[in-house]
């Protein structure tokens, strides 16, 4: 369980979290959502608000993939080389390739590999679909299957930030809208369908309409 109690985070002048109180329950999968496309605008990536929860490292362009893996292994005692090996195959990455030679999509998959290889209580996955060609459904399926395969459900609390709602919806249990540093809405994804007959995307639209008109 992670409890945020009146947490405020400021980056420069902007508050990315403004007096937020929220409890992430152990073993659940949360989605922190923003409207589609807003990631490309001036809006900073949502995850930076929560970056203090994770220790997602950055990629070093001059490293090869296997050097990145070794580096993470040396930095994090919970990093599983075994999981990393499985993920290498799964994500179809070539261990001898240099980070600087990777496409955006490959870099995204490498980041995901590095995060998913850690056996931490909390996983923060920042925009797992970023850099992917919107037309390539297959790759998205691979990412979703990768998440389902490598997350330790029930043990790991997973927080996924994304602007791509439809892809991630079947994996999530709870969804949160974080806007201007405040949690403006929160729902259980299956209850939404069961009780209101709407998908998360529709729920998100409903909740954003108000905000945009304001």
């Amino acid at each position, binding site marked *: 369980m992670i409890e945020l109690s009146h947490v405020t985070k400021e980056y420069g002048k902007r508050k990315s979290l403004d007096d937020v109180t929220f409890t992430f329950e152990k073993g659940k*999968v949360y989605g922190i959502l923003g409207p589609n496309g807003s990631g490309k605008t001036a809006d900073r990536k949502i995850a930076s608000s929560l970056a203090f929860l994770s220790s997602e490292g950055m990629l070093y362009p001059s490293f090869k993939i296997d050097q990145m893996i070794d580096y993470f292994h040396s930095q994090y005692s919970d990093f599983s080389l075994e999981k990393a090996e499985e993920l290498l195959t799964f994500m179809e990455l070539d261990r001898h390739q240099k980070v600087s030679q990777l496409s955006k999509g490959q870099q995204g998959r490498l980041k995901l590999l590095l995060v998913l290889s850690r056996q931490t209580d909390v996983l923060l996955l920042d925009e797992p679909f970023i850099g992917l060609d919107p037309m390539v459904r297959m790759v998205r399926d691979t990412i979703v299957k990768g998440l*389902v395969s490598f997350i330790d*459900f029930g043990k790991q609390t997973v927080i996924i930030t994304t602007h791509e709602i439809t892809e991630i919806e*079947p994996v999530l*249990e709870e969804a949160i809208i974080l806007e201007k540093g405040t949690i403006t809405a929160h729902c259980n994804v*299956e209850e939404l369908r069961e009780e209101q*007959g*709407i998908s998360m995307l529709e729920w998100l639209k409903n909740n954003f309409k108000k905000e945009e008109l304001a």
Partner: protein
Amino acid sequence: MSAEFKTSKPIYSQIAERIIQQFVRGDLAPGEKLPSVREMAIQAGVNPNTIQRTYGELERLGVVETKRGQGTFMTEENDMKRKLRMDIQREMIAAFIENMRSIGFEDREIHESVNQFLNGGENGHD
């Protein structure tokens, strides 16, 4: 099993419906072992808790049986397949009739057109 889901129904019940349909069609045999929760979750691209609910619901309906330490199996009860088949039929007919009535067709007209369609009449096959 691809990850396309309708928005109006919980995902767990949509997967349950798919399994029932596969069973009725004969793609799943009585007594056949279903994939583990985790395996099924990966195949469907959904949260394993969703599959847990799917299997729970199917067990409640008597469609599957969970054997401790062995997994989840399609029921071997003789009457179940016939019963499910009838259930699906009734549901589909109810939905169809409701649709037709809402557009304004009389029962007599529905009856006639269905007969005609089945007999390969003018409203039937191209």
